[in-house]
C-alpha cells in the first residue's frame, strides 16, 4: 500500500510563494499585445536554430525563402501544440482542484487555470490571425493510463511538466531573439515568465506525488519510467508536422518528416530541448534512464 491522496504532505510554502508572485504580476492578455494586421512571410517567425530542419542536409538544400515560410508554419504548429496541450492540462487540473488530496495546492491551481486560459487565448489568436487555422490535435488520450487514481495523477502532472519544460526551451530563445517580430518575442517572453512559476509548482507536485508512489513494486516504477520516456519522444515527434512542411511548399511532406526524424544531427537538439526536465526526472529517480531522443 502507499499513501492515499488524503495524506499528501505538500510543501505549502512553495505554493504560497508562487501564488503571491502570480497575484503581484497579475495582467490581462486582452490588451497586452499589439496585433499587426499582417506579419510578412519574408521574415523569420521562429528562430532558425529551432526549426526541425536545423542541422540536417535539408537546411542546406532549401532556399532561404522556403526556410522562412517553414519558420512561419512551424511556429503555427508550435502554438497549435500549445493550444491543444493547454486544453488537456486545464481539463486535468480542473478535475482535481478542491478534490481530496489537492486542497492545499488549490489556490495555486486557481492562478494556474487563469493564466493557462490566457495563454491558450493568445496562442490561438496568433494561429488564427496569421495562419488562418490551428493545426489539429494529434496527441489524443485514448483512455486512462493507470487503474489507480494516485498513479494517474502522478502521470498527469508529469506529462504537464514535461510539456511545459519543452515549450519553455523554445519560449526562452524566441522571447529574446531580435530577428523575430516584437509580437513574437513578447508573446514568447510573457509565456516564459508565467511558465517559470508553473514549472516550479509542477516540479513540487511531481516530486511529492512520486515520493508517495515509491512503495510500488519495482516493475510498476519501471513501467512508469518507460511510459514517460515514450511520452517525451512523442512530444518531440509532434514538432515534426507534415502539414507544416506541405504549407511551406516542401514536396513529399511525410518523407520529409521521416528523413528529419532519422537525421543524426537532430539528436543533440532533442537532448537540448528536454535537457532540464530530463535532469530533474533522473535526479528524483523518476526516470531510470534518459529518453532516446
Amino acid at each position, binding site marked *: 500500500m502507499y499513501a492515499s491522496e488524503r495524506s499528501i504532505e505538500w510543501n505549502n510554502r512553495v505554493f504560497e510563494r508562487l501564488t503571491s508572485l502570480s497575484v503581484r504580476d497579475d495582467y490581462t492578455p486582452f490588451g497586452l499585445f499589439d496585433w499587426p494586421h499582417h506579419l510578412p512571410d519574408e521574415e523569420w517567425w521562429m528562430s532558425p536554430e529551432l526549426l526541425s530542419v536545423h542541422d540536417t542536409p535539408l537546411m542546406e538544400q532549401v532556399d532561404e525563402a522556403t526556410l522562412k515560410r517553414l519558420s512561419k508554419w512551424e511556429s503555427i504548429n508550435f502554438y497549435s501544440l500549445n493550444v491543444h496541450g493547454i486544453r488537456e492540462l486545464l481539463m486535468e487540473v480542473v478535475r482535481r482542484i478542491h478534490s481530496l488530496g489537492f486542497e492545499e495546492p488549490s489556490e495555486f491551481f486557481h492562478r494556474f487555470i487563469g493564466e493557462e486560459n490566457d495563454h491558450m487565448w493568445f496562442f490561438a489568436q496568433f494561429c488564427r490571425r496569421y495562419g488562418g487555422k490551428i493545426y489539429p490535435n494529434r496527441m*489524443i488520450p485514448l483512455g486512462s493510463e493507470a487503474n489507480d487514481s494516485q498513479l494517474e495523477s502522478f502521470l498527469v502532472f508529469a506529462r504537464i511538466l514535461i510539456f511545459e519544460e519543452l515549450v519553455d526551451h523554445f519560449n526562452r530563445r524566441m522571447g529574446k531573439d531580435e530577428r523575430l517580430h516584437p509580437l513574437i518575442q513578447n508573446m514568447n517572453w510573457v509565456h516564459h515568465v508565467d511558465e517559470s512559476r508553473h514549472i516550479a509548482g509542477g516540479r513540487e507536485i511531481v516530486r511529492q506525488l512520486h515520493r508517495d508512489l515509491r512503495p510500488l513494486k519495482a516493475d510498476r516504477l519501471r513501467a512508469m519510467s518507460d511510459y514517460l520516456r515514450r511520452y517525451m519522444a512523442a512530444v518531440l515527434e509532434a514538432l515534426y508536422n507534415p502539414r507544416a512542411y506541405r504549407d511551406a511548399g516542401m514536396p513529399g511532406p*511525410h518523407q520529409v518528416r521521416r528523413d528529419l526524424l532519422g537525421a543524426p544531427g537532430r539528436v543533440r537538439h532533442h537532448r537540448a530541448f528536454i535537457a532540464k526536465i530530463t535532469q530533474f526526472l533522473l535526479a528524483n529517480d523518476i526516470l531510470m534512464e534518459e529518453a532516446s531522443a
Partner: protein
Amino acid sequence: MTMRTGRDDGVSELWRWLQGHNPAAAQLALDLDLDLIETRILRSLDFMNFILFIEELSGIDIEINNNNGALIDSLRTLRSIRDNLLKREAQ
C-alpha cells in the same frame, strides 16, 4: 471474415505498422474487428504517428479533435478504418 487484398486495401500495412509499434500485437493474427483502442493495441502515445500513417496511405487529411467521438470510433477497428478512411482514396 472476408478481406480485400491488393494495394488499395491498406489493412495489411496498417496491421504491420501496429505490430511494429506494439509488441503486444506481434503474436496476434490480423482481425478486422478487433477493438484496437479497448485492447490497447493502439496506444495513446502511438496515436499521432498512426494517424499520420493513415493519412500518408490514403492521401487524405484526417480532421480529428477531442470532441469528435465519431471519428475516434472510425479508428476503432481495421474494418472501420478501411471503410471510413481508406476507401475515400478511391472515391
